[in-house]
């Protein structure tokens, strides 16, 4: 068994700050002798210098959650405080990276320790060797403050990285250097009241503290995903929050891929938090192959993946969503729209519960700590639409889509309930619909979007004034359908009135020709908002005209047999170049029924 090098006691004596372990219980370690310990400071534990974080202080006892396996640690082992909180490295090179929950790059770990992640391996989040071409945008003598952009780096062909002045630095640019730089090389010197400060490409930010902004605004613009059920029925706003429960086999992964691929956000952060290894492998192999449809470039050029699978250390799972959202905030501050997907927040909550149990805290509901809902709320609150600090003025947003994995599909459990209280959009994926091959399997009766009204206005203004009405009518039809189906089940279809039978037909069209969308069909996979409106408009127009015709005495069979319905059902496969086709079909519709 590998034992550490003997500790040089003289050296320890010199660095008196070292504490010593007095207890080890799973991922929790208790130490004494760290008088300067601060909450959430990072410490290095034991001979392998495992990464840990201080999560409780009691008199002189310090409780530490350790981000790696604690086997082989014991009382007496040393604990070395770093004096800094758990932080991520920010700078060019984040995009395209694959990290674990505490920002260790997984491909680099594989080079260091092989196919298995062994204890104590560490690597910086940003490559120290890689050189970036820096183009300064300020000159010597300019006055700058936090958040001001001083230079640009073309991080990937898709994304221009903006170098911002770090927090707390106000002053005059004493020196600025462009050219090929590594992340550690000085690119600017700024003379401040407290002396000259150096700026490098690599900047640190503590993950548990939201990055400051100049101001926050309410979301008003939709995040367009090209998924009809999402954009039209249950829209998500840029800067908004959504949650999606994913029972077994409900097609959650396909939906996530579709969102990552099509959402009109510039940066995608995907956090695999406590999920399956093979599933993560699927993401890790699929994402690099996905092509960004808006630019034709690999999607990874605007993506950061964070993978902390269920068998990786539980404390790192707890940290992973904070690592992810801090990176998201960094790009938001540059003025980008960021979409962050966290899969699954239930696993994160379980990590929280596990650590809380080890701390012997008083449990709340189902053993979760009482602060579960406030932590969840604080996480989702880091989403939003902001005016970034510094000049030039820029706006950015973070949209958070968190999935939940309710045990036994029970939506009344604490994580789902705490999540529903804070998020504004709920996409109720259902396995039942998936079995019927209705994809995306979002149940239109239980789902909701609190942005719908506000975004309907946007649609009304940007797409077509008739949109809000068409949407409302369509949703009403679906609601009535569910009631009518109940009646049909009990007493049969014969008891329905003419209008009611037409509603069933229209609902069927909405379901099959509008809500169902094939993610694997080249054309069907993305529908622009203009086409979404026209498709819905056609169906609702058909409803009105068919109803009129039927009420005027036309036999229902003939109304339903009209070939124009076939044409409507094929509109899924039209492209934006064929928008004129919608007018033709509408023409045909009028001539058929009038």
């Amino acid at each position, binding site marked *: 068994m590998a034992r550490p090098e003997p500790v040089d006691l003289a050296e320890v004596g010199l660095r008196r700050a070292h504490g010593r372990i007095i207890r080890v219980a799973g991922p929790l370690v208790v130490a004494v002798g760290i008088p300067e310990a601060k909450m959430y400071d990072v410490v290095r534990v034991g001979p392998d210098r495992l990464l840990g974080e201080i999560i409780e202080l009691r008199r002189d006892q310090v409780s530490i959650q350790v981000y790696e396996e604690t086997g082989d640690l014991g009382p007496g082992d040393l604990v070395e405080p770093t004096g800094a909180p758990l932080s991520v490295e920010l700078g060019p090179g984040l995009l395209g990276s694959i990290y674990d929950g505490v920002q260790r790059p997984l491909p680099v*770990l594989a080079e260091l320790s092989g196919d*298995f992640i062994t204890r104590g391996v560490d690597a910086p989040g940003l490559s120290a060797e890689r050189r970036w071409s820096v183009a300064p945008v300020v000159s010597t003598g300019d006055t700058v403050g936090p958040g001001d952009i001083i230079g640009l780096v073309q991080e990937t062909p898709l994304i221009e990285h903006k170098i911002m002045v770090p927090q707390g630095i106000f002053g005059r640019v004493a020196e600025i250097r462009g050219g090929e730089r590594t992340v550690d090389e000085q690119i600017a010197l700024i003379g401040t009241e407290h002396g000259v400060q150096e700026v490098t490409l690599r900047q640190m930010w503590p993950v548990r503290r939201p990055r400051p902004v100049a101001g926050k605004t309410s979301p008003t613009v939709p995040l367009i995903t090209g998924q009809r059920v999402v954009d039209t029925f249950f829209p998500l706003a840029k800067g908004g929050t959504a949650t999606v429960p994913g029972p077994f*086999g409900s097609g959650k992964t396909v939906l996530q891929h579709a969102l990552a691929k099509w959402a009109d956000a510039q940066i995608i952060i995907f956090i695999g938090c406590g999920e399956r290894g093979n599933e993560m492998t*699927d993401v890790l192999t699929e994402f690099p192959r996905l092509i960004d449809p808006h630019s034709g470039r690999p999607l990874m050029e605007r993506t950061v993946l964070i993978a902390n699978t269920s*068998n990786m250390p539980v404390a790192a799972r707890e940290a992973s969503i904070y690592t992810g959202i801090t990176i998201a905030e960094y790009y938001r501050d540059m003025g980008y729209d960021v979409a962050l997907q966290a899969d699954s927040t239930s696993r994160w909550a379980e*990590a929280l519960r596990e650590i809380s149990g080890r701390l012997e805290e008083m449990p709340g509901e189902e053993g979760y700590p009482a602060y579960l809902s406030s932590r969840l709320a604080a996480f989702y609150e880091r989403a939003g639409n902001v005016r970034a600090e510094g000049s030039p003025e820029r706006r950015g947003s973070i949209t958070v889509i968190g999935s939940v994995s309710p*045990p036994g599909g029970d939506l009344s459990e604490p994580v789902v309930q705490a999540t529903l209280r804070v998020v504004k959009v709920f996409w109720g994926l259902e396995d039942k619909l998936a079995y019927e091959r209705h994809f995306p399997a979002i149940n239109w009766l239980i789902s909701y979007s609190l942005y719908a009204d506000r975004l309907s206005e946007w649609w009304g203004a940007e797409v077509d004034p008739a949109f809000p009405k068409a949407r409302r009518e369509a949703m009403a039809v679906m609601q009535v359908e569910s009631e009518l189906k109940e009646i049909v089940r009990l007493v049969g279809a014969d008891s329905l009135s003419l209008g009611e039978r037409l509603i069933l037909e229209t609902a069927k069209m909405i379901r099959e020709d509008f809500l169902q969308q094939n993610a694997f069909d080249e054309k069907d996979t993305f529908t622009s908002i203009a086409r979404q409106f026209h498709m819905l408009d056609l169906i609702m127009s058909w409803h009105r005209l068919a109803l009129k015709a039927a009420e005027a005495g036309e036999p229902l069979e003939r109304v339903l047999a009209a070939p124009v319905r076939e044409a409507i059902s094929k509109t899924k496969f039209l492209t934006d170049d064929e928008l004129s086709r919608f007018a033709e079909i509408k023409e045909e519709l009028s001539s058929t029924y009038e």
Partner: protein
Amino acid sequence: MNRDYLTIRDVVGPLVYVERITDVKYGELVDLQFPDGRVSRGQVLDISEEVAVVQSFESTQGIDTNQTKVRFIGHGLELGVSGDMLGRVFDGLGKPKDGGPRILPKKRLDVNGSPINPVERAYPDDFIETGISAIDGMNPLVRGQKLPIFSGAGLPHAKLSAQIARQGKVLSGEGEFAVVFGAFGITFEEADFFIKEFRRTAAIKRSVLFINLADDPPVERLATPRVALTAAEYLAFELGMHVLVIMTDMTYYCEALREVSSARREVPGRRGYPGYLYTDLASIYERAGRIKGRPGSITQLPVLTMTDDDKTHPIPDLTGYITEGQIILSRDLHRRDIYPPIDVMPSLSRLKEKGIGAEKTREDHSGLSNQLFSAYARGKEARELAVILGEQALSETDQIYLRFATDYEERFVNQGEDERRTIGETLDLGWSLLAELPREELKRVKPEHIDKFLGNRVA
């Protein structure tokens, strides 16, 4: 470095509290030497300056606080591994149980293993032909997958898993196959069934068995799956074999975990199971997989008996969230004497689509299984209706579907315990069942496949 102590303070259930100890590490292995000379293995679960909490793998009966000696061994639980393990039977901690010689280890490995780096995993997509239609045709197993069998008391999960172990083979035919069998908490009879079964079919030569019986110490069960998987990892990733790991019964494992947790007075989660059950189960199930650039693979087939056939119980529920699908056995089919009684509707193989198709099995596989799924679902609905209204009241189409559902269960799902159907036979059987349905009902299969495979078949 061995250190002996006579300082046991408390004994609570399987837990032994040892005080006044120095230099003890978390997870360290312990020998408890009882006054009567018996020695029990144990492991440090919690360690502070004052006291080490040791879980004893064997019963604490006969232990006392004066004479029992505690020896700290200086390392965690390890397994000595070698290719010679094949063909042998061990106890739950890896000691030979078959009267054979000790294994001369090539290596000693920590039984806890290390997580596979997600970027080094290779996605599982090699179809394993088990010869069982309800699995191959509907919910196929692929190399590197973890696919549990959700069973219930009295259902033939043992027969089924033995059959899969016996018949499973990969169509590409490359690589050596091995079976690692981990039994925890099952009865002598059940274990004996497996051992006999492996001997009968000579499968024993390529198997390694780790057996912890119902009357063996429950705490030992916490180690057994890890010991078995350590052996499997060695065979798979060092010797390049394709290893099928059968673990039965996960329910007893979880109960042992709960027992230790409650002895430690931990805050219980759902149904008294500890809050870390998910993480703990993941550390077992996630050891399945394939690694880029290495020839071997680990495929897991854990078996668990559901309490009262309830799949929302924490054990099946959390298992389902970690594994890539599940095979559910149905009491109803079993009563009707259908073997294997696999309920195909709620069963699922999440890795199905990547493991089947033209190059892997046959081009019609995906469409055909979707068609069978939907037709069977329709047939079952018709059956429910028939119960209420009577068969006569069904429409003609519903009657056809009703017949289809029955035929599907009796001819497709049902098969002999020693019957091995090739994937071709399974798919052809599927088509011959579809021949009962009107052509226009076959909407999920491609027309060209209908022409090619259904042809002029008549039911």
